[in-house]
């Protein structure tokens, strides 16, 4: 039996409409934004509404009335009678079980909804290809509290119907990475159990950008700080969502190459960890060779203003196999020498022979040289070749051979920003080309139908301020605009969503809004949200998200369990 909590109010000034209504309720009744209520409607039907705002009013006509009621400003005064007050709740209609969307009537009874009704009201019943994305709580901290798993249609997040996920929220308070990892964990598990159908498969490419956060995702969380009780509770939460509570499987780690002879390190993993991982065959050090990777050099110039397109001209010259200057070069050393030479020489040389390099000023060559030297000199990652017997690889080669359910974690945490961009851009391009079928002829290339790329700090590569010429932005736009049908899915996270290129966010089917600040919610990206939701975004708890997906009738406030893989102390 549903609990009756109030009645609908409709007045001349505050009418009920097809999508909004107001009801009064007891001031002490605990209700929250996003809670669902059930309203009696015509022809025996029931409408369901989502709470947007709750206001408390009394019969005091003005602030002055209240002030006078304390003997003109004596805060100590206790009145023997409480002022008559009530709460009125503004809600929006989400659903009517007989499709009757005429406004609900004044005086209509308003009830709390049962779990089944909540599921129906939010459109969470009969979801095809269900993929769990968290759980929601209704009527929190009351006797009527309900916890429900929330599932979305995987075809609306992994394609082909809709693809890409954007997660936004303040660092440290929104747990963006944890949420993305939770979703990917759920996806991996559901694909491994075959619940998504035999013809569909998935793999993951994850970039570790901070510390060694994602460098042990195949190891279980020991809940060292939280204790056994918490561990049990989290495992139960996973179980209630239909998940195993096991860490990721089929994980491969890739760290930038460094020689064991030097003290310099390119990862936050300890020497022992690296050795252990290598022994287990799950870690490779990646290298870039000049012959194979010169085409990716442009990624180093992603953030560099190039209004005359001289850098672009130089790069196209370099990748031209028949170029008189760069045609035969096979190592980074030779390459740098050649660039050095070109930036020294006063041109034209006067040999009477017209050279392409004549068109590029020596100043441009010097700029190019500076950038190239900074990036490749003294960096062992830029090497002549990868020695596969020594757990080394070319990253692009490794990614080409990605197979179903693989999780590739690429560690770029310790790289400077421009090299992070280089690695990311190169990897995205490889995946994109792989799904385009560019490597189909090569042996051992059998990509899964869907590849998910997860990158934190998306704003570094696809912000509104990123130069239009940026090759990485181009890659990301390609992925977000065409990836849905190709099977390349981008899971991006950033602090401020308003910073991200509109064509990127615009193409994401799913949006997760974590805790953010008021400056952010004041931007026009959040203009469509009711003000209560905006304010709520500024005080969401860690692990709470507002989720938007085409199959949900409205925004949902969800929670997700703590990470199930090893956590490193901050």
């Amino acid at each position, binding site marked *: 039996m549903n609990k009756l909590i109030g009645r609908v109010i409709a007045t001349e000034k505050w009418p009920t409409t097809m999508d909004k209504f107001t009801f009064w309720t007891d001031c002490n009744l605990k209700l929250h934004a996003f809670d669902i209520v059930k309203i009696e409607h015509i022809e025996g039907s029931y409408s369901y509404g989502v709470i947007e705002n709750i206001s408390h009013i009394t*019969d*005091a*006509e*003005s602030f*002055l*009335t*209240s002030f*006078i*009621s*304390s*003997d*003109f400003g004596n805060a100590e*005064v*206790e*009145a*023997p*009678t*409480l*002022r*008559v007050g009530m709460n009125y709740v503004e809600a929006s209609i989400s659903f009517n079980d007989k499709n009757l969307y005429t406004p609900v009537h004044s005086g209509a009874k308003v009830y709390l909804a049962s779990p089944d009704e909540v599921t129906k009201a939010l459109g969470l019943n009969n979801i095809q290809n269900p993929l769990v994305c968290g759980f929601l709580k209704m009527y929190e901290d009351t006797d009527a509290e309900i916890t429900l798993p929330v599932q979305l249609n995987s075809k609306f997040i992994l394609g082909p119907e809709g693809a890409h996920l954007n997660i936004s929220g303040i660092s440290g308070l929104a747990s963006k990475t944890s949420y993305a990892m939770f979703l990917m964990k759920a996806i991996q598990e559901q694909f491994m159990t075959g619940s998504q159908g035999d013809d569909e498969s998935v793999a993951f490419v994850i970039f570790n950008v901070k510390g060694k956060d994602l460098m042990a995702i195949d190891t279980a969380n020991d809940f060292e700080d939280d204790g056994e009780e918490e561990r049990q509770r989290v495992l139960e939460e996973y179980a209630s969502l239909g998940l195993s509570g096991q860490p990721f499987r089929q994980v491969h780690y890739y760290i930038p190459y460094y020689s064991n002879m030097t003290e310099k390190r390119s990862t936050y993993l300890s020497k022992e960890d690296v050795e252990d991982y290598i022994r287990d065959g799950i870690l490779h050090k990646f290298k870039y060779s000049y012959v194979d990777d010169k085409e990716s050099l442009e990624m180093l110039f992603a953030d560099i203003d190039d209004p005359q397109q001289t850098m672009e001209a130089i790069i196209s010259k370099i990748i031209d196999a028949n170029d008189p200057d760069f045609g035969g070069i096979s190592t980074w050393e030779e390459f740098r020498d050649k660039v050095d030479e070109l930036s020294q020489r006063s041109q034209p040389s006067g040999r009477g022979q017209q050279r392409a390099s004549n068109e590029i000023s020596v100043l441009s060559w010097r700029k190019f040289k500076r950038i190239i030297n900074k990036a490749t000199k003294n960096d062992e990652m830029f090497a002549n070749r990868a020695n596969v017997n020594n757990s080394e690889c070319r990253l692009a080669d490794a990614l080409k051979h990605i197979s179903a359910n693989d999780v590739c974690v690429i560690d770029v945490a310790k790289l400077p920003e421009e090299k992070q961009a280089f690695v990311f851009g190169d990897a995205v391009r490889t995946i994109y080309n792989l799904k385009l079928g560019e490597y189909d002829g090569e042996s051992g290339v059998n990509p899964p139908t869907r590849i998910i790329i997860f990158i934190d700090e998306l704003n570094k590569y696809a912000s509104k301020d990123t130069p239009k010429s940026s090759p990485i932005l181009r890659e990301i736009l390609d992925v977000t605009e065409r990836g849905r049908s190709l099977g390349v899915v981008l899971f991006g996270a950033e602090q401020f969503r308003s910073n991200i290129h509109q064509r990127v966010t615009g193409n994401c089917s799913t949006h997760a809004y974590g805790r953010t600040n008021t400056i952010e919610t004041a931007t026009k990206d959040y203009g469509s949200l009711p003000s209560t939701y905006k304010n709520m975004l500024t005080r969401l708890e860690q692990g709470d998200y507002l989720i938007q997906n085409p199959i949900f009738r409205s925004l949902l406030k969800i929670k997700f369990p703590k990470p199930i893989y090893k956590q490193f102390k901050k």
Partner: protein
Amino acid sequence: MSQVYPDSPKSVMQVLADETGGKSYKAHKYGLDHAERPFIDYSEDTIIWERTAETNPTKNYVSLEKQALDLALREEQYLTYFLDGSRRVYKVDDHAYIASGGRSVIYPIVAGQIGVGCCKRENKIIKPERFMREIVISVPDIADADGRPGYFKAMAMKLSELPVLKRMGIEIKHIIPYSTKTDPEKFEDRGTAKIQDEMIQCEKDMVAELVKKGMLDSEHYLVKDGSLEYRPTKDIIADKRKSMIFKNNYNYVLGVSKNFNPEICRDVNGKPNPGYIAELPLYHRTPVACYRPNYKGVESDIRFAVWYIRLRDRSRTRTAFDGVIKVEKMLVTQEENEYGIDSDLVNMLSALLINERNPVCYGTDLRWANHLYPVYLTEKYVKSKYLSAESFLHLF
């Protein structure tokens, strides 16, 4: 009274005119009530301070500030029930009756809605306890051509059977005749006065009901809006036993008036002394005076104790009389009649009333300085139950 009107499309006034042999003029219908605003009630009462009605007679103001504060701190509360009656009066028609000499005289027909409500305070929250509504009509006494007893009662029943009323579940409770004797008073005012009397009767009935149910005692007082100076009926005055029951009903009832006539307050020399109330300091009360209503020359044996309390600082109110309430309590026991009310009880009740000064209805009611919030809420409750003026006038 031979005809029956089962499906009559006729209006109530038409049927009333037909039945009483009058002629309905279908006059303009309008409300006779005045807007609620502070006013000074220049009624004909006389209170003389010379006779005190408390056990510790004093001629000075009594400060209650400390006692009020102490009671508030202890959250002691004995004022539990609040009662308010109100009426809305409308002129609904003019009827012409043939008077002596064949000339026709026009008399107004006055209708009223009476509402009496009682609210209870529990844990600082006011909740409705009882409500009573009556719809009455006041007609000139000559409407009853024969002067038979029970004529108007039967007529009221007949009118209530009309479909226009039946459909809405509305019953005309009484038809009350007003006097048509030559008098400077307007007929409309006479009708209004009759409806007012009926309202007072409803209030008395409700008090009697509360007493009968044993709801009032020394820890559960009833605060009634307005004066307690009910005129006891002739039979009550005549019958000692009835008189005693009537008085007993009021043992735990306080009448608190927002409006009073300051002129009636006379000093020991019998001269009016309104300044005595005007100068009452904040959170003080006046001495308790005794008052015996005098009704049409018949002096009843019912005496009232009357005193005044200032709730609001004079500098905060518009006039010197805003912020002062008049309190009445009936003298019930023989002892009280002889020696007056226990001054300690007066002080305690006054202190409790002082604590009722907050919250205020400032902004929504011009009489905020004199209003007690629980009474104000009761009044609001009663008024919320009224039919709107339009709906009500349409009935006739």
